[in-house]
């Protein structure tokens, strides 16, 4: 046989079978994805259900849906304050406002899982909605950084799940449109003393019994979804599997008769809230194990709040269906005296993501300390913006699309608001950004920000970046 024939055949075979993504998949096998049924489906087409008063169409841009998909040169059609349709050749109704985004990038509004200011009330008094300031100028700063929704926390939880939080939107000037949800996040801290563990186990038991009672009373209404079932629903979007089952259920009646001290746990188990676990001191492996024990106790995933050494235990975290909030830029040196591996790793987000853990990124502390999106400082010069931290995660090896999810859909999941924000899917809130470049590039600016279907920020009308023309 001639030498060239096998070569030609080999070349042809390579051409046919060269599948880079396939190779990636074989090398890093992803966890089995949960079936479509387990995923919380966004609301069905809203088209004919409600009469829309005002249409807004953003045409011609490259649309990142926030789920990881990119649709090039597409149109986003917004009806009032919800996304009506995304795609090509859409039928734009008469009288719609059209924003031409040709050559630009359209992305969902970013979700800041930790932030401060931006219209939030300064004191903890009554309902959050009654003390908001919709004209706070730092709302515009947040919009200039691309943030459209964020989680505000008042009290940190203690050894029991608790605390007060609210998901707020940067709907400048629109008081009613600012609150998305109240208390969708409860938090607690580890490590716990044996006594506190005992108390927690007790409360979880009571909560489970209460839920069983409720389910027994309602048996026959719906097929019981295993909301509190085994945590081994490991999967790519692991946290969704078990929790979404709970959330797909209709809001299970009032917590009448709920045992004292279990309201928050019940909310978490029903899928109405997300539990964040944070560590008092540095989040090392022992603390992570404690947090995962909490998850095992509850029977569903929790959110690890800045676990520095999570990159050491990706599989264990994924197994419980937990999620993580990371600061890719934060660097802490390893401690040689510590028996476990310690220290941060810029590849943490990539490692966790590959194991199937949903990850959100947040900037490290600015001049105010703590890992919050500082809207103080000189915006743009201290680079404390979300998309740059996602870019750092990419530098560590995280996939580009996953990095965008870390500030959109996965971040929305972590704050418990993925039913309304985080991606440009039909039926979700119309919060989007028109960017003048790739969302994760440092030179990219937000040109227009739309929240609840209204334009609330335009770069050339606000004093922050008006002077920078490219």
């Amino acid at each position, binding site marked *: 046989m001639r030498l060239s024939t096998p070569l030609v055949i080999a070349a042809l075979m390579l051409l046919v079978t060269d599948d880079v993504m396939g190779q990636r998949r074989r090398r890093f096998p992803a966890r089995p994805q949960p079936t479509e049924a387990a995923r919380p489906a966004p609301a069905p087409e809203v088209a004919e259900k409600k009469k829309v008063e005002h249409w807004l169409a953003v045409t011609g841009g490259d649309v990142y849906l926030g789920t990881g998909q990119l649709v090039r040169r597409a149109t986003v059609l917004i009806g009032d304050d919800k996304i009506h349709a995304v795609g090509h050749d859409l039928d734009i109704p008469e009288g719609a406002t059209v924003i031409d985004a040709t050559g630009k990038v359209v992305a969902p509004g970013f979700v800041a899982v930790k932030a401060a200011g931006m219209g939030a009330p300064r*004191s903890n*008094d*009554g309902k959050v909605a*009654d003390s908001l*300031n*919709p*004209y*706070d*100028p730092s709302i515009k700063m947040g919009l200039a950084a691309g943030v459209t929704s964020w989680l505000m926390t008042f009290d940190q939880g203690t050894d029991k799940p608790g605390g007060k939080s609210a998901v707020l939107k940067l709907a400048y000037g629109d*008081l009613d449109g600012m609150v998305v949800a109240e208390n969708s996040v409860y938090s607690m801290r580890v490590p716990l003393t044996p006594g506190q563990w005992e108390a927690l186990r007790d409360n979880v038991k009571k909560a489970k019994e209460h839920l069983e009672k409720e389910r027994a009373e309602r048996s026959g209404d719906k097929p019981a979804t295993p909301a509190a079932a085994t945590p081994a629903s490991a999967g790519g979007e692991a946290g969704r599997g078990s929790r979404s089952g709970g959330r797909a259920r209709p809001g299970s009646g009032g917590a009448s008769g709920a045992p004292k001290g279990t309201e928050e746990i019940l909310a978490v188990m029903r899928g109405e809230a997300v539990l964040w676990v944070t560590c008092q001191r540095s989040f090392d492996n022992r603390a992570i194990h404690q947090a995962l024990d909490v998850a095992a106790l509850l029977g569903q995933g929790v959110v690890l709040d800045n676990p520095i050494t999570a990159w050491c235990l990706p599989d264990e975290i994924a197994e419980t269906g937990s999620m993580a909030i990371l600061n890719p830029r934060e660097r802490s040196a390893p401690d040689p005296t510590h028996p476990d591996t310690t220290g941060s790793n810029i590849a943490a987000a990539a490692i966790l993501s590959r194991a199937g853990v949903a990850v959100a990124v947040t900037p490290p502390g600015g001049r105010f300390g703590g890992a919050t999106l500082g809207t103080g400082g000189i915006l743009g010069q201290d680079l404390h913006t979300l998309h740059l931290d996602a870019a750092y995660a990419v530098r560590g090896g995280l996939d580009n699309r996953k990095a965008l999810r870390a500030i959109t859909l996965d971040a929305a999941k972590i704050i418990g608001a993925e039913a309304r924000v985080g991606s440009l899917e039909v039926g979700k809130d119309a919060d989007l950004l028109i960017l003048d470049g790739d969302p994760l590039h440092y030179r990219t600016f937000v040109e227009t920000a739309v929240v609840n279907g209204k334009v609330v920020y335009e770069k050339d009308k606000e004093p922050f970046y008006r002077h920078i023309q490219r």
Partner: protein
Amino acid sequence: MTLGTRLTQTVVSWIAVTCGGLAAQERPVAIQNARVLTMTGETLESATVLLRGGSIEAVGADVEIPAGAEIVDAQGGTLMPGLVSAYSRAGVTAPPQQDTSEPAERRGRFRGRGRGGSGSSAASNKAAAKVSDALYARQDVFGDLLECGVTTLAVTPEGPGFPGQGAVLDPAGKTREALTVDDEAFVLLSAATGTKNKELIKDGLEKAQKAVEERKKPKTPEKPAEEKKPEAKKTEAKAPEAEGKTGEKPPAKEGEKPPVKEGEKKEGDEKSEEKKPQPPQPARPAKKDPNIEVLADVLEGKRRAFLLVTSASDLAHFKGAIGKSEFPKRTLIAPGYSSTNGRLDEVLDQLEPFKGTILTSPTLTSPAYSEALVNPAAALVAAGYDVGFILGDSKRDVRDLFFKLMELVRHGLDRDAALAGVTLVPAKALGIDDRVGSIAEGKDADLLLFDRDPLDPAAKLVRVWHKGGTVGKERTE
């Protein structure tokens, strides 16, 4: 005033005279060669104003001067109406209902801002409380303000929700009775954020709305005493409001209560007819919350409301709290400009339902993150509001008033609007523009004489007349 006091005052006034001298009340005063800013009509270039008996008797170019009149030659200076300070805390010491644990300096107008909660005072409905009940008459501040030209002063209560009713004062009065001209001049509604405050406002207005509807119900003729029940059904809902009642029931209100109560009691009777008739008890008047009654008056337009809304954020919360309530006689008060909570001139379309008179600060301000100067007063005038100015609480604030007005005019405010904003418009805001705020026949003789145009930087306030009498000494330096 008693005869003795009056006699003493007249004697003292004659004795204490130096140059110029205090004119006795009866002696007419004729001010000649003055440029008169009437506020309601044309500016008269060289006219004479005749004052007699505490009022302006005549204004014009050729006014007959009666014999024995004191003649004042204005030498071309400008005569304008006395300043009307329609929203002030001057002289208000600790009102009994308010929380006095806060240091006095902080009990300023902006106390509630910046805080999400209700602040230190437990918010309750005190609409019937009167700020004039807490006034101490012998304070220097009243005389000081009068010397600076403030001939009409209105003081306001303070606090979130419904802190009470403001009063119009005569700054020359030396006793509480002489000082207080109208102790129920306006009802203050203070917008506030925070669940407690908003609930308070919502609750109060809802109850007032119900009271208004009940007043509209026709009154049925009085039934025999046996069937009268001690308490009508509807007032039971108001009984819990009793804790909000203050000890001071406005005595003037008693008169108007009985006819309304009759109608209410009839409702109760008709409903409870099927009940067993109780043994006849002495007919007790049905308890009505005076605070709610005051608010009901406001909703009907019988009383004037001052709506205190300091920022756009407050406005948004306020609209949520008041629901559909409307205030037929209202003035909007917007002291200070907030750069962190939004300015009212940035949300003019949301301000539409409150269109009318607005009292605001005579200052320029800067937007957030900027050093540029903006003139909110000019923007409001351009949008069609009658803009009046808040003069301030002390002599220091009022002395600089004309410099502040100059600055506003320099940045685009109309001159006439600037001067009307410290005279006629605040008088309109209080509903007393039939008496003060302009120079015309029949108005009170409250005048300011400047040696040149008041908005000229070198202008001096030469003389102040209050009810026809000169205030203090005539300034000749």
